[in-house]
């Protein structure tokens, strides 16, 4: 199943990159997609639901998540640009390291969460050791945003859990 999806995706990439539709190039594309599928069919969709419908649901939810994330990225960039250009940067900054245990189970969801943390305001993922995240936060407030209020997971973690593991948002 994953091999078939990988083959289709690879052939789509070939069409986009090649832009030539004669028989010779299409045959070459089929051969190349087959070779890549044979070499790495277990890579592209490892750690996802095996069913096609479930994959579609994941992709749809992921797109909604991306919309939310892009706004966060814009905020992050305004934040860091203001910090870089402000004359009293050293007074505003308060760098420290935060660690927290994640509720996410799969590796891919953790990867998405780590990259989202890196892209959003004031925080960079330093390390994931087993299921603990170590995050470098540049101001005290950004660390607070990340961890969320109280005991439950932060807003972003709830989003990621909703996308990949079907939790409530």
């Amino acid at each position, binding site marked *: 199943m994953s091999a078939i999806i990988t083959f289709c995706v*690879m052939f789509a990439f070939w069409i986009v*990159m*090649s832009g*030539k539709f004669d028989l010779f190039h299409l045959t070459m594309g089929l051969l190349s997609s087959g070779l*890549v599928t044979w*070499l790495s069919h277990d890579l592209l969709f490892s750690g996802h639901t095996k069913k096609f419908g479930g994959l579609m649901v994941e992709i749809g939810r992921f797109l909604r998540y991306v919309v939310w994330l892009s706004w966060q990225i814009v905020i992050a960039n305004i934040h860091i640009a203001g910090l870089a250009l402000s004359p009293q940067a050293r007074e505003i900054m308060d760098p420290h390291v935060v660690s927290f245990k994640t509720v996410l189970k799969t*590796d891919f969801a953790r*990867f998405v969460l780590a990259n989202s943390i890196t892209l959003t305001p004031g925080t960079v993922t330093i390390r*994931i050791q087993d299921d603990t995240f170590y995050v470098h936060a540049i101001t005290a407030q950004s660390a607070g945003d990340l961890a969320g209020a109280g005991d439950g997971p932060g807003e972003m973690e709830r989003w990621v859990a909703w996308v990949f593991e079907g939790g409530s948002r």
Partner: protein
Amino acid sequence: MKRLTLVILAICALIMLAAAVDLPNWADPSSPASTHLSPDFLEQGYGETATPNIVTVVLADYRSYDTMFEAVVVFAAALIVLVVLRRTPRQRSKMVQHRPVREGRDTVLRGAAQLIIPVMQIFALYVVGHGHYSPGGGFQGGVIFGASFILLALCYNLQFTIDRFKEQAVLFCVAGGVLLYAGVGAICLAMGWNFLGYAGLAGILGVSEVMARSHGILLVEVGVGITVFSVMMSLYYDLASGGDLDEGL
């Protein structure tokens, strides 16, 4: 000994400087290369080989010998690194291990690698296949294809990559790429043309002589690509693990 080396180097440099005086000036429009060769290549290149990218035509057809021995040089580099660095299991036990501590930390790199590597491989194959129309060809495509495996070894670990792609298979590819290149030339020779005269492939492939040259260029590009990618992997296997083939970077 050092002084002797210096003297020999100085003599060689003087000879080369003396020879350089007789070279035509840079970009001299009246030099033989500019008056005869370049216009001929530019005018006849497409007509003779049905390949729009003149650089590819010159590289893989007009001076195909040169490219073949470039591939042989790359092949020799892999062999030499193998001879110098590769250790047998008996030697291995004497060495102090330097194992990086990485268990449970690679989640982010793995997540990125599993998305990037297949796309990278199809891009590499595209670069090899479209050397006729856009910049690219065997060397560039082979480098990208090999780099995708190096990314796999960096993000997972070396053992994982070796399990997927055995050392024997890599060395088979190293030799096989050069063999494919030389084999195409030998087939042309057997068909009664010059060595690497791709028009000789016309009878086998069942196409016109012009198209046969185009396909011959593609075949030798594939040979170069296989050589380059497997040589990169072989070098990485040996260099990253110091010849032990157990732990990479």
